[in-house]
């Protein structure tokens, strides 16, 4: 395959990845890294570097919507960023100690967890009406949002901030190690541990992903692991795909597509595990 064909095919796949990712709620990274490593046989660290750039592109590009809708809790998000960015730096350092095989295995495991989480779709927590969480009260992390389907402003209190911070630290590490947005870890951390409304958790997570990825991207960049010939077409493609996807998002995904996606996730997870173990 010539460089030109490489760029074009990569761009097209990236558009598809961005589209699919925005419809299903997973970032492009989950699709991009396996595609780059398994299909194009690119060094996994270059794949991760490129994926981080695309994660930043979609997060920054989509942030406008969430901020305008006032869904994202910017205070809680920024507070939790303390953990995610520190986790990201830890991860960016740890990755220099890990053999490539370990990354493949870890990626496969995270994919399996994402598939499992999608299958579960357990009932979301009800918002807390009062909170004696000292951190949340001191930093005033509580908030409210307007729920369009219920046609009212819903106020909520944030609880268990310390647990949330611990989970966010892990999410940051995973993001730096694997080049993904870690939304699959962040949303449950906010929704289930801290009892923030699911719409708020999802919006805040989308908002946070960019900052976390930036903390990792810095290290990959200066280590020369962000190759422009890979990163550029991917970033552009994923952003385009996500933009198209967000306009299509009005409709809910039919169930069979979600099931199909879960199957694909499991298959790819097994492929990645195999790469790591063999």
């Amino acid at each position, binding site marked *: 395959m010539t460089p030109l064909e490489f760029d074009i095919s990569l761009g097209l796949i990236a558009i598809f990845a961005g589209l699919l990712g925005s419809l299903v709620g997973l970032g492009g990274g989950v699709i991009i890294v396996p595609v780059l490593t398994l299909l194009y046989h690119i060094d996994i660290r270059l794949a991760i570097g490129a994926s981080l750039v695309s994660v930043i592109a979609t997060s*920054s590009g989509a942030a406008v919507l969430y901020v*305008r809708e006032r869904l994202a809790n910017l205070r809680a998000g920024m507070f939790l960023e*303390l953990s995610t960015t520190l986790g990201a730096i830890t991860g960016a350092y740890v990755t220099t100690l890990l053999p490539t095989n370990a990354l493949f295995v870890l990626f496969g495991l995270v994919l399996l967890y994402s598939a499992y989480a999608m299958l579960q779709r357990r009932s979301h927590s009800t918002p807390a009406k009062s909170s004696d969480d000292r951190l949340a009260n001191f930093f005033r992390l509580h908030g409210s949002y307007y729920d369009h389907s219920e046609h009212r402003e819903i106020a909520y209190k944030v609880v268990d901030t310390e647990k949330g911070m611990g989970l966010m630290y892990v999410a940051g590490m995973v993001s730096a190690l694997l080049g993904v947005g870690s939304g699959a870890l962040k949303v449950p951390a906010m929704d289930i541990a801290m009892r923030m409304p699911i719409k708020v958790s999802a919006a805040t997570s989308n908002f946070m992903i960019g900052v976390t990825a930036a903390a990792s991207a810095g290290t990959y960049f200066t280590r020369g692991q*962000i190759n422009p*010939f890979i990163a550029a077409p991917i970033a552009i493609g994923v952003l385009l795909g996500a933009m198209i996807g967000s306009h299509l998002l009005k409709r809910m995904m039919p169930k069979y597509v979600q099931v199909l996606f879960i199957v694909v996730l499991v298959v790819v997870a097994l492929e990645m595990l195999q790469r790591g173990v063999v």
Partner: protein
Amino acid sequence: MKDLMAEDGEAIIGWVLKIGVALSMVIILLGIVLFYVQNGGLATGSYQHFVATTVFPHDVGSLAASLQAGEGIGYIMLGIVLLVMTPVVRVAISALAFIYQRDKPMSAVTLVVLAVLVASFYIGILTR
């Protein structure tokens, strides 16, 4: 400006992010076009070889030199750097907004996050 920051720093943040992304994309595209023009279309050879052997700048000095020489690759890297900076700028503006709102706890938190972000670039150099 000060009032805008105090009341609705969020609006500025969203605006800045969108412009940052759009600008970086334009620069990247410009760089890609320039690169193809300067390197003869790249319709031959294997991409593996190309990816493995083509040199690209990844620190401030070589990036500046590449841009001065008008290299397409320099512009692509510049666009990527801008893109990576958008969340950092966003955090900086958040810090300013909290400071204008006289919110000491959140100002401190945001400034620490900003410091971590800046530090991350240096860590890359240290762990090479």
